[in-house]
């Protein structure tokens, strides 16, 4: 990933945050992300994020599980090692259903968890820059990425006008990185006023 410049603003209240998100989008600034202490209903729509495809992925994983279970069991009991179990047929579908169901759920669950981790870029050992220590506590943190066309002072003034406080500029790694916050974070982030 790349080290980029950001302007960070803090909000105390969702009621102020929502109109601010709208203003930022209409003004055409590049919204990096908004960090909230709890899930805020409708914020994804306000930010213009697209609907997740996680459930489509889940469906595909589930179908894969169903197919795997059915084809493997049929192969085992019909081709590889046919056994007479209680006089039941070699393809006893009712007996296969619980296992098929379980494997469907297992594939869907494990697959979706891993896809979710991938989409959110979270994994043990993977770190991301924290723009403000209170972003998981009681502050709503809005981060705007600075591009070549945007002027930092102008964005700061804009955020202040939209109701943010403690507006500051940060230079930080935009993606994920391996390491430790106490040892490596300075490498990736340089507070503008430091």
């Amino acid at each position, binding site marked *: 990933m790349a080290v980029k410049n950001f302007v960070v603003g803090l909000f105390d209240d969702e009621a102020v945050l929502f109109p601010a998100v709208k203003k930022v989008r209409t003004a055409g600034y590049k919204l990096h992300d908004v960090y909230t202490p709890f899930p805020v*209903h*409708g914020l994804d729509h306000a930010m213009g994020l697209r609907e997740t495809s996680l*459930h489509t992925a889940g*469906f595909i994983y589930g179908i894969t599980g169903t197919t795997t279970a059915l084809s493997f069991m049929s192969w085992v009991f019909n081709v590889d090692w046919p056994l007479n179990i*209680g*006089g039941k047929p070699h393809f006893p579908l*009712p*007996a296969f*259903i*619980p296992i098929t169901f379980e494997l469907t759920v297992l594939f869907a669950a494990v697959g979706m968890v891993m896809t979710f981790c991938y989409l959110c870029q979270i994994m043990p050992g993977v770190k991301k820059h924290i723009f403000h220590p209170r972003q998981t506590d009681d502050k709503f943190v809005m981060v705007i990425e600075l591009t070549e066309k945007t002027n930092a002072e102008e964005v700061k003034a804009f955020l202040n006008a939209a109701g943010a406080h403690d507006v500051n500029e940060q230079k930080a790694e935009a993606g994920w990185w391996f390491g430790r916050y106490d040892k490596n974070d300075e490498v990736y982030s340089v507070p503008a006023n430091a």
Partner: protein
Amino acid sequence: MKDQFVVPARLKKTSFVLMGVGLLTLLIGLIAFQGENATRFWAGLLQNSSFFLLITLASTFFIAATTLAHGGWQIAFRRVPEAISMAVPALAAILFVVVMILVFGGKEHIYHWVNAHHVAEDKILTWKSAFLNKGFFTTATIITLALWIFFTLRLRKMSIEEDGWDLRPETGRKLIWRNTVWCGGFLVVFTLSVGSTTPWIWLMSIDAHWFSTMYSWYTFASSWVSGLSLIALFVIYLKKHGYLTYVTEEHLHDLGKFMFAFSIFWTYLWFSQYMLIWYANMPEETEYFQPRVWGEWRPIFFLNLLINFITPLLFLMKRDTKRNYTAVAFIAVVIIFGHWLDFWQMVYPGTVKHLVFPWYEFGLGLGFVGLIIFLVSNQLTKASLVPKNHPYLKESIVHHT
């Protein structure tokens, strides 16, 4: 804001036409099915009266379950299940008349345990007679029907009464408390009846030699998912006619999720009942599935699974269909028809035996649908469509899935 329902002339006409069709079918059935064939006349009545009674009773269960769970989302349309549940007394009366004629009219082609000579010669029925006898059947039926009607009327009366209360925190707390207590009471009754004894005596005793401990849950799942579909249909109808201002796609989405989830729940019970019997493969248990899976009823048995599991599973899986009024209305009709078919294949192989084209049963079903539309639309006019003093109303208005 339109919150006082007025029955449109067209709906009234539809309900009368459907009831007319039902009555006509009943008359034709009375003439067409005589002597040996009279079994079909009564089997059709038993199937339809029990199915439609249980799906309207599902509305009372909906109110009770959501109240006990302290749910807020359903308050915006709570008057709809309330109105549907008010069809319970009339349908209970019809069912009561039907089963009493079956038991005391000696209709042994439906319940073969009503014949005393037959029971005396039959070891299984003799053992079961402590439970499966006319006295117990009648007492249990009267008690359960009376309790269902009592609780249904009580919940409805309280809800309307609360419209006249003033809005204060103390009245709000009192409202929640007394609703919780009465709904708790109803759930105990419901569990001990629909969840246990009632389907045994009304439906399972058709195959008196056979038993399944899953049977009541299976019947409950069937009637509950159809009951949810019925609620959804009325909600959609009212919404399309400009009522229920506070109900949005969010509420529809949740109803759709319920229909989706309980279709799967029904399948789980369908399969559990089948698999245990298939696995053990004991003649006294497999006799129930013999005509259904290997006999004439095979197409219906698998059609049942196709309509009630595969269709809702694939159709309601997508978020967009659950939030689309037309799509949910369509699948609700499919689910209700599918479970009506389910009740048909529960009653018929043990009584009529042969697979017949169900024109008579379907005609009766239309009559019951007309009766439900008539009763429910009448009840909807009796109170404001929004329980305006309910403390959770705001939660329902701002509801977001």
